[in-house]
């Protein structure tokens, strides 16, 4: 089940269409990558998928239910967004930022109870950062902060996580740590949908890939079919070499000067 978008058309201003006829399925137990050049509409698409923006045409459903028919609380229990920027929160511990993920389960005048703190701890545990629980959020490295942000999304208890460039601004080791953690969540049955600028990460971690080119989505394909030299050139406007090792591992290298 999980998140499905059909025939999405969206524009911020009438004359400038950002997305046209976009179809996408983020299925349970899978990692779905959305790739595309800067300004191709990836973040806009994520905001439509979590119901923050309403498309002019098309529909989004979460677990088979139209997203605009779900109450904010019901929606938050089904799909969580992990945004791209996550400023440091001086004075907050990591647990205190993660427990904010439980907001939809708390009344206006309640503070987090034992169950909420347990959910925050479990989320930190699942991402292998339980030891950071009492650390100051402002003192985390960029990679640790990304993991803490994913933990907040996890604490929400939703089955689908939509992540906006979770591998941006991270060194290779942290990219691997973050994406492996996401892959493990998919193995546990969650649907993971993420935008990225790293085709090679999609080759390693994706179950399926959607390319956004000028607001139009190419058909959703398995990574080996989606990530070809031709498709990358169409998406980014520069040429790539596809390298394959004898063991079958693939990598995409941009050519010098784009040719």
């Amino acid at each position: 089940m999980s998140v499905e978008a059909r025939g999405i058309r969206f524009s911020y201003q009438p004359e400038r269409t950002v997305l046209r006829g976009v179809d996408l399925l983020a299925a349970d137990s899978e990692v779905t990558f959305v790739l595309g050049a800067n300004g191709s509409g990836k973040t806009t698409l994520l905001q439509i998928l979590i119901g923050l923006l309403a498309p002019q045409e098309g529909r989004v459903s979460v677990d088979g239910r139209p997203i605009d028919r779900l109450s904010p609380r019901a929606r938050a229990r089904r799909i969580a967004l992990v945004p791209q920027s996550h400023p440091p929160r001086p004075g907050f511990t990591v647990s205190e930022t993660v427990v904010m993920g439980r907001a939809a389960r708390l009344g206006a005048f309640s503070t987090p109870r034992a169950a909420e703190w347990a959910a925050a701890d479990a989320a930190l545990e699942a991402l292998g950062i339980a030891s950071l629980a009492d650390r100051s959020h402002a003192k985390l490295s960029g990679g640790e902060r990304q993991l803490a942000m994913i933990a907040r999304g996890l604490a929400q208890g939703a089955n689908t996580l939509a992540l906006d460039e979770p591998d941006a601004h991270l060194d290779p080791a942290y990219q691997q740590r973050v994406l492996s953690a996401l892959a493990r969540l998919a193995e546990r049955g969650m649907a993971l949908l993420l935008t990225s600028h790293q085709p090679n990460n999609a080759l390693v971690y994706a179950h399926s890939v959607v390319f956004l080119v000028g607001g139009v989505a190419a058909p959703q394909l398995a990574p080996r079919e989606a990530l070809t030299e031709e498709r990358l050139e169409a998406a980014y406007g520069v040429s790539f070499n596809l390298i394959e090792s004898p063991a079958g591992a693939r990598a995409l290298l941009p050519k010098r000067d784009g040719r």
Partner: protein
Amino acid sequence: MTRRREATAWLLFSAPLALLAGSLLIGRYPVSLPEAFRALFSVGEVPDVVRALIVRVRLPRAIAAACVGANLAAGGVIFQALLHNPLVDARILGVSSGAAFGAALALVAGAGAVAVQWSALGFALLAVGMVVLVGWRYGASTLVIVVTGILVSALFASLLGLLKYVADPADTLPAITYWLLGSLGGVRWADLAPLLTATLLIQPLLLLARWRVNLLTLNTAEAHSLGVPIRALRAAALLGATILVAASISTSGIVGWVGLIVPHVARFLVGGDHRRALPAAIALGAGVLLLLDGIARTALPVELPLGVLTGIVGVPGFLVVLGGVLRTRGALR
């Protein structure tokens, strides 16, 4: 760590009570603790003049100081969370300049103390209402709200200048100036109605919802994803904080800096989570204003304006806060 935290909490919440009791005793006519106790609870023999002094003069003034301090601090906490900016307080939205114009207008019209207070309250709310309306029209981003706040403040400052220009220099102009300096000098029970109503209605709600104040620091997309109705939350926080601050300033005149600095000291002591930071700021604000008002009325033979005193303490305090903020952002080593 836990023990230190407990000790801090005890100190934070007992200090305002001790200062409240202390402010009943000190002054040009010192009163002993047993005497004050007998006067307050009408037990035993107390001279009428002492009873009147404690019950009619010092008690309402001390309660006003505690409420004004608590409200300005709570308002500061809310505005800093709401605008994602650690260097703002209610003044950024024009509350003070609106209140100042309202008070001056009533003084020029020759109105009595209660009318001055209500006029200040009304114009403070009007100023924030203008900021919100214009800000909403232009997309309600933090930047737009702050810029609109500066514009509306400037407008009311000009209108205040006009009133000062036409005010009778023999009596009205000094009255306006005195109001702008801030003081709790003339406060009696009859003046406390708006302040007490706002405090008793809003502070308990705010304290109950203190964890939700954390959610004000989220951006719109994050809040949406977490299922938080962020527009309603922001509107409720803005309304509550504005009424608290407006009711306070209309009673005390302009008392600056408390709303800006006290939240930082509270966060420094108990951390940033508003489960602790909000109650701590409220207690600290009450304590600080009780202390400063005590100094204002006893330090010199004549009474010092409270707003002047908070300014003298507040400016160096602000520099310390600014240093801390810049250091956490890596802009200062």
